[in-house]
C-alpha cells in the first residue's frame, strides 16, 4: 500500500503505533517515508490520527511502538528542542508578552546567536512574509492573517530543514486562507524546506501538496499526488472523502482483465474498472465523479435517470438524479452553448465511460 522505507528518506515512520490509554490504538502501523524537499499533507477527518503523527514527529508525543527517523537517525528519544524542527501551530502560539521581533528572535537567542546576526535574520524572515514593518508590534495588535505570517516566519527563521504545520489556516476566512495557501507554497518552494502539513480541508491539501496522505482510523488509506488521489482513488473512503462522488453499490459478477461486471442493487448490470473490488461474488461500491457523467444516449453504460432537482450555479448546473435507485446521484452539466436543458421530473438518459466508474471495496 505504501512505498516502503528507502534508505535515503529524509523523514521516515517505520511501523509506528501510538496508544494513549493502552486499550485503543490511535495510530495503527504507520509506515511513511518522504524525500527531502517534499511538501506532504496529512489529510483526514478529526480523530483520524494525523495530528498525533505530527506531534510524534515534533517530539511532543512518544511513539508506543516503532521508529521515527529524521535524516537517517532515530529521533524517538531526542527531546523536541534538539530536533531542530520548525513548527507552526493551529492557534499560531505567538508569545503574547513579546513583540513580533522578539518572537522571531527567540529561537535564535536560545541558540546563542549574537544580537546583530539575530536582528538581520529576523528582519530577513519578516520581509520574506511581507511583515517587515511589524517587528515592534505585539501579536494581539495583528490581524489573523498577519499573525499567521509571523508564525510562519518564526518557524523558518532558524532555518530548519523540516517544518511541521498543524492546521495553520484553520482560523482564517476563506479568501485569506486561499491567499495564504499560495504564500506558504511559494515560500516553502523558495527555501526548499521539507514540509509536513496537517489539515482536514481537502482543497488545501490538493492545491498545496506534492503528495497527500489520507488518514482514517489510524492508518494511511492512500498516499499519492493530488491528481491521483482525486482521479484514481484506491478505496471507497478516499473516493468519498476527496471531492464529490457518486456511489452505486452492487455485487461483482465477473472480473476480466481490469473490467469488472457488476450487478447493481436493482438487478441491472454495469461495467466498471476493477480497482479494489475483490473476486466475483464480493460486494462493491462503484465510484463515479459527477463531472464524468454525460447526458445523452451515446457510449457505454447508458442508463435512464429521473431528474429530481436542478440547482443553477452559473458555470454549471447541478442536477440531482435518480440513477439505479440511488436518489443522490449528482451530475454537473456545464453551462456551455447548446447544453441540454433538463426539467424536474423528466426522465432522461445518461452515460459514462467504463474507466470512469471505479469498482472499489464496499465500506
Amino acid at each position, binding site marked *: 500500500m505504501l512505498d516502503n522505507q528507502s534508505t535515503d528518506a529524509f523523514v521516515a515512520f517505520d511501523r509506528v503505533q501510538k496508544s494513549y490509554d493502552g486499550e485503543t490504538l490511535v495510530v495503527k502501523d504507520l509506515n511513511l517515508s518522504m524525500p527531502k524537499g517534499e511538501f506532504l499533507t496529512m489529510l483526514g477527518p478529526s480523530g483520524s490520527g494525523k495530528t498525533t503523527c505530527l506531534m510524534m514527529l515534533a517530539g511532543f508525543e512518544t511513539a508506543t511502538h516503532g521508529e521515527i527517523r529524521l535524516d537517517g537517525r532515530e529521533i524517538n528519544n531526542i527531546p523536541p528542542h*534538539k530536533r531542530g524542527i520548525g513548527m507552526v501551530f493551529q492557534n499560531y502560539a505567538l508569545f503574547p508578552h513579546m513583540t513580533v521581533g522578539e518572537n522571531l528572535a527567540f529561537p535564535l537567542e536560545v541558540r546563542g546567536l549574537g544580537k546583530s546576526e539575530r536582528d538581520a535574520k529576523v528582519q530577513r524572515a519578516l520581509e520574506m512574509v511581507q511583515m517587515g514593518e511589524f517587528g515592534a508590534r505585539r501579536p494581539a495588535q495583528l490581524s489573523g492573517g498577519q499573525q499567521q505570517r509571523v508564525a510562519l516566519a518564526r518557524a523558518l527563521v532558524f532555518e530548519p530543514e523540516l517544518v511541521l504545520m498543524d492546521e495553520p489556516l484553520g482560523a482564517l476566512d476563506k479568501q485569506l486562507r486561499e491567499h495564504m495557501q499560495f504564500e506558504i507554497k511559494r515560500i516553502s518552494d523558495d527555501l526548499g524546506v521539507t514540509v509536513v502539513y496537517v489539515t482536514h480541508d481537502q482543497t488545501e491539501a490538493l492545491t498545496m501538496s506534492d503528495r497527500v496522505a489520507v488518514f482514517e482510523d489510524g492508518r494511511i488509506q492512500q498516499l499519492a499526488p493530488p491528481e491521483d488521489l482525486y482521479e484514481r482513488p484506491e478505496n471507497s473512503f478516499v473516493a468519498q472523502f476527496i471531492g464529490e462522488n457518486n456511489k452505486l453499490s452492487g455485487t461483482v459478477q465477473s472480473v476480466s482483465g481490469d473490467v469488472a461486471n457488476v450487478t447493481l442493487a436493482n438487478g441491472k448490470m454495469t461495467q466498471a474498472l476493477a480497482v479494489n473490488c475483490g473476486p466475483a461474488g464480493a460486494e462493491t461500491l462503484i465510484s463515479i465523479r459527477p463531472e464524468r457523467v454525460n447526458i445523452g444516449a451515446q457510449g457505454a453504460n447508458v442508463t435512464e435517470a429521473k431528474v429530481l432537482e436542478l440547482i443553477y450555479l452559473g458555470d454549471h448546473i447541478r442536477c440531482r438524479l435518480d440513477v439505479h435507485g440511488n436518489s443522490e446521484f449528482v451530475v454537473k452539466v456545464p453551462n456551455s452553448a447548446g447544453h441540454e436543458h433538463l426539467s424536474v421530473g423528466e426522465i432522461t438518459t445518461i452515460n459514462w465511460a467504463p474507466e470512469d466508474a471505479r469498482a472499489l471495496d464496499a465500506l
Partner: protein
Amino acid sequence: MTDAPADPHLVTAAQPSSARSAGLTTADGQPLKAALNAAEAKAKWHAFFLVLPLFAFVLLTFVAPIGQLLYRSVHNPGFTTHKDLSTGAQTPIMTELREWFDNNPQGTEPDEAAYAALAKDLVLLRELKAPGSVGTRINYERSGSRSMFTKAARRAERLEAPFKEAMLDLDEDWADPEIWAAMRGASSAYTLNFYLAAVDLTRDTEGSITQVNENRQVYVTLFQRTLFLSLLITFLCFILAYPIAHLLATLPLRYSNLLMIFVLLPFWTSLLVRTTSWMVLLQSQGVVNDALVGTGILADADRIQMMYNQTGTIVAMVHILLPFMVLPLYSVMRPINPSYVRAARSLGATSWTAFRRIYFPQTIPGIGAGALLVFILAVGYYITPALVGGADGQLISNLIAFHMQKSLNWSLAAALASILLFGVLLLYWLYDRLIGIDNLKLG
C-alpha cells in the same frame, strides 16, 4: 445632474458634513448628545437603583467606620469635653487650665495660677462625676495619673490657697513636669500625639519629639515584625501555591475539580477549627512531636517548640492564606495554551528556558494578584497569631485589639490601624507603579 439639488439623497448626504462642525443632530434637529443621554437615562437609573443597596451598605459599614477611625486617631476629647451618658449633654471641662496653657508657652514652670485653675477645674469634674475619664486620658501618656485625678477631685472642694502647696500635699507627683506636659498635650482635642505614640515617639516636657524609653518601644518593632512575617508568609504561599496551581491548570478537568475541592476545603471549615488542629499537631505534646519522639528521631527532652511562637504563626497563616494564592494563579494558568510551551520547545528552548521565558511571564498577573491578596490579609491578620503566636508571634493587629478591648485607648488603636491602612495603600500604589494594577488578575 442639473436637478441634483432637488435629489433628496444628495441633500441628506450633504447634511453630516455641514452638521459636523456644529455638533451632530438627530433627524428632528435635537443635539445628538442630548438625545443619547435622554435615551440612556432610563437604563442608567435602573442600574443605579440596582447597585443602591450595595452602595449604601458599603457606605454604612465600610466608608463611615474608616472615616470614624481616621477621625478618632487625631481627635480625643477626653480632657476637653464631658458627655453625660444619660442625657447626652456635653459640657466643656478643664477650661481654666486650658486658658492658663494658652497664656503660658510650653516649658513654663506651673505657678500658683496654674494650680488654682487646676483646682477649680477639679471641682467642676467632681460635680460632673468625670475625674475618672479625664484621669484615663492623661494615664495614656503617663501611667499612674488616673488615681491622682480621682483622689484630687474628691478633695478639691476643701482645697484652699495657696493651691500649689495644697495640691502637692495631696500628691507630690503633681509637681512632675511630665504630667503637666501631658495635660498640655491633652488640652486640645485634636492632636497627633497618638500617631507619635504609635511609632514609639513622644513629646518631652519641652514639647519636642523624642523616642520613648527603650523598654517601652514596642510598636516599631511590631510593625517591622508584621511586615517581615507578612512578606515571608506571602513568599511561602507563592512557593507552595505555584506548583499546585500549575497542576490544577494542566490536569484533565475531572481530576483538577477533585483537587480544587481539596484546595477549597479549608474555606469550608471554621478558622478556629483549622487553627486549633494546628495546635493539636504542632504543640510540644502534639502529634508531630509525639511521632518524632516515638520513632526515636528526637529525644523526649528535645521536643521542638513549634507552637506559641513565630513558627506557629507562620505555619498556621500559610495554611489559611494558601487558597488566596492558588486561586488567582490558577485563573491565569488555566487559559495559558500549552502550545506556547510546545512552541518554545520546538523553537529550541529547553524546558527550563521555556518555563522561564514563556510560561512564567504569562503568570505574573496572577502572582501579583495572589501576593497582594495574601499580603494584605496577612498584614491585618488577628485571630491566628492571637491563638498560636505566643509572645513573639504577635502581629500589630493583636496590639490594636489590645488597645481596643483592654487598655481602651481607642485613639491609639485608631492611629495604629491608620498607619497600617496607609502602609497597605502605599504598597498598593507602589505595586501599581511597578507592575501596573491593570496587570492584576484575580479570577
